[in-house]
């Protein structure tokens, strides 16, 4: 988790420099998205663990949380 957010911050920093020089802000968005996605990725890893240990209840809850967050991403991008 820690490395995920640090990587996201480094990408954001590189993106800010690129935006300042070339005027393209794509990498900034990628870096910030990497920060936001890190906890969700860790939740996905936990889901995989729960699936391997056959904890159906825990797996259902973790997948529900991931589905809600992904739905919010789609919803906020579409509206």
């Amino acid at each position: 988790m820690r490395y995920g957010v640090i990587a996201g911050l480094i990408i954001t920093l590189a993106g800010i420099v690129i935006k300042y020089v070339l005027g393209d802000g794509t990498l900034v968005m990628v870096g910030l998205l990497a920060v936001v996605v890190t906890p969700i990725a860790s939740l996905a890893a936990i889901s995989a663990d729960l699936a391997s240990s056959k904890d159906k209840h825990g797996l259902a809850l973790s997948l529900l949380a991931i589905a809600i967050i992904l739905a919010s991403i789609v919803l906020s991008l579409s509206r």
Partner: protein
Amino acid sequence: MLYLLALFAGALGIGFVSAITGIGGGSLMVPFMVLALGFDVKVAVATSLLCIVVTSCSAASVYLRRGLIDIKSALLLEPATALGAIAGAFITLTLPAKAVKCALGFILLYISGMMLRKALAKNQSRESPSKLLPARKLISVLISFIAGLTSGMFGIGGGVIKVPVLTMILGLPIKVAVATSSFMVGLTAASGGVVYLAKGFTDPVAVLALAAGIMPGATLGARYMRKLDPKVVRIVFSLILLYAAARLLYSALT
């Protein structure tokens, strides 16, 4: 450049105080950005949520390694909390800035009161449920939704609500509750933060400056924790929050 230095210095202080009081930085970060640096309240909320993701992930990765996080409780509460955070973010985006400032003022008043009560309390007895009834689970899910809503609306982590839910309703030991809350706070802030990010409210430069300041600030705070009286720090912190709440309410109502 000066504003970057101000953000970094402020974040150092916020990290320091957060480590000593155990309260996440969001409740100080948003008022600091709005009142001291003149940020738009929605940009401040969006930026604060991203910073909370950074700090929470750093702490949660340590807690995960030590096995302190109660994954089952986190998974029970997180869907409702994430839903609340997303709803909260959409509510804030539709509200006028003055209404958000006013509501934030009241939330800070509440947190300030909680901190002051904790600082002045002599005995902190806690009920520890021996049996987890379904009603307790339902209540904790409902309160978690409210915690998510406040997080998404005001850019705070919501630990101030989650930790009491985990200890008093689900009966977790305080260390496990703090670790579990820290893990959940990252997910909740990410859920709300992604909405603001997609709408273009996040300030990436401010995120970097704040994240760079909060981490060393928290390390310093953890180091000086034994030398400072947490009671005094809590009283000072609650008075700062009280002042911030008064300023926010004044600026919202005039």
